[in-house]
């Protein structure tokens, strides 16, 4: 059975009065159209899978998780989670899922353990059971010593763990995590990875959004790469990396428009693709860094001076750039 299935999923938010993206001026949209956050998305997540949703900020990751966790209304299409329809049976979906939000939102009027106990009672669990289970979870997540503390006394990493504990109090089948490691220090991030691996080991389905390549690569069984609400690629991290084009990505920054150098680069041997974005020249090279002298010459032939050179090995990052023309982070 599929833990999650979406069919032609679409979400359009009403257009706000003024919204500008940095660098890119917003296209003048007619007032009737809104902002398309999710566009005809078809996804299937297997039971017990660790599924990653990878995309830059604003790709639609949070909207997708919002829809799947019944917190965002669907504009069109259908989504099933743990066998229930998110639009018509939201309470049944909520019964079966646990949600770890992007920003910890504990109940600040309650202590750490009360957060877990009350949350469990919202799911019909008896208080005594809830207290026992809450203690267990806090121990497993390594914050048992903060049991009676106020939520405000927890660090960011500890609050994130509390959110994970809360999401697990009612033993959900599918656990959603929306960019859980944003804002965590490297150590807290690594220990969170351990926790997530353990959850996955218990056979739970995990859906995690992230814009960190490494995280997606390390943890996920399969990855969906989305941008501007569209599914661009879906496969295992290994298979996706194999799809990364033209081996090495060479980025050369000139002191002016790079488009002239791009034409020259495309004609070079061993170059699979080249494009200019302002002063930035992006070249996918089968010969690695060997083509750099030629690229410098191509720029200098038109009076451009090189300001910066950067090489990236084939990775999810280079795949993403080749798919979208944008960087992830």
């Amino acid at each position: 059975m599929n833990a999650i299935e979406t069919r032609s999923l679409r979400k359009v938010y009403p257009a706000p009065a003024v919204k500008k993206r940095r660098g890119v001026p917003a296209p003048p949209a007619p007032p009737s159209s809104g902002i398309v956050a999710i566009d005809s998305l078809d996804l299937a997540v297997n039971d017990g899978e660790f599924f990653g949703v990878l995309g830059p900020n604003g790709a639609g990751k949070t909207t997708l998780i919002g829809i799947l966790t019944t917190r965002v209304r669907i504009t069109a299409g259908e989504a099933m989670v743990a066998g229930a329809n998110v639009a018509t049976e939201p309470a049944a979906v909520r019964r079966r899922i646990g949600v770890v939000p992007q920003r910890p939102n504990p109940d600040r009027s309650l202590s750490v353990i009360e957060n877990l106990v009350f949350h469990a009672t919202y799911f019909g669990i008896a208080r005594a059971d809830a207290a026992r289970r809450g203690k267990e979870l806090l121990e497993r997540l390594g914050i048992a010593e903060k049991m009676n503390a106020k939520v405000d006394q927890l660090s960011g990493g500890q609050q994130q763990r509390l959110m994970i504990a809360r999401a697990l109090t009612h033993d959900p089948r599918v656990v959603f995590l929306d960019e859980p490691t944003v804002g965590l220090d490297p150590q807290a991030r690594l220990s969170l990875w351990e926790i997530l691996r353990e959850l996955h080991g218990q056979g739970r389905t995990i859906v995690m959004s992230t814009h960190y390549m490494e995280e997606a690569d390390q943890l996920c069984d399969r990855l969906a790469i989305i941008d501007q609400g569209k599914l661009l690629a879906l496969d295992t991290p290994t298979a996706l990396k194999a799809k990364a084009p033209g081996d090495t990505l060479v980025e050369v920054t000139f002191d002016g428009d790079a488009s002239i150098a791009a034409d020259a680069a495309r004609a070079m041997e061993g170059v699979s693709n080249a494009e200019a974005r302002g002063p930035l020249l992006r070249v996918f090279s089968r010969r690695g860094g060997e083509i750099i002298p030629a690229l410098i010459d191509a720029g200098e032939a038109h009076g451009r001076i090189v300001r910066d050179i950067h090489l990236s090995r084939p990775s999810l990052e280079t795949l993403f750039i080749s798919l979208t023309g944008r960087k992830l982070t």
Partner: protein
Amino acid sequence: MTAEPLAPVAPSRVFTAILLRDLTVARRELPYFLVRTALQPILFVIVFGFLLPKMGMIPRGYSTTMLPGVVALSLTLSAIQSVALPMMQDFGFTKEIEDRLLSPVPIHLVAVEKVAAGVLQGIVAALFVLPVARLIMGPIPGLSFRNLPLLLAVTALGGAAFSAMGLYLGTGIAPQQIGLMFSVIVAPMIMFGCTYYPWAGLDHVPVMKWLVLINPLVYVSEGMRAALTPGLPHMPIAALLAALVVLTVIFMWLGLKAFDKRAMS
């Protein structure tokens, strides 16, 4: 992992659990709650029920007119604040209500629970102010608790109407405008709510007598008057009860609509 579908949880059970959460939090904050909601009515009692009569600037019998109004005021002020303030907070930056919105029940139940908690907190405030006011003002001629069913009906309906109004204001108004809400909506409501004078007294100003009918507080004040001091003139009971039912329905409808807008994007 269990493969069979999990049994649904009874909504009544979830409702009780969420209500218990609110009451636990309310109990801890009781002193602040009483200061926040009862201080203003008590200050009015001190000035108009004790000082001014002592100075002879107000006839002694005035306390009989004022007491039901003060009880109505504490009930409604606390009911409205008990819902509006947490709603503004919960839907604001902290998004703390999220854990309840993820509980396995229709989200409207979460809103209805808040209103129920608001009614209970309104009753607590009214029960607190009544003896305090009596203590400050001394014996109140004509005060009677014999009409208990009416007293309960007015308390429950008044609390519900104002909790529902709190739901609407708390979810429909931007947090930045909370100050505005109190000065533009709540303050005039108190002044023109027949709290410090009976509705019948407005016979002298007929325009006002009809204008104040748009003020929900009028019906609670007059209801309290009918229940606590039946000897004094008051609005017909059937009319004020009907008005409170209608107001509860209207505010609940508006409140749920605004709640939906905030809860689901």
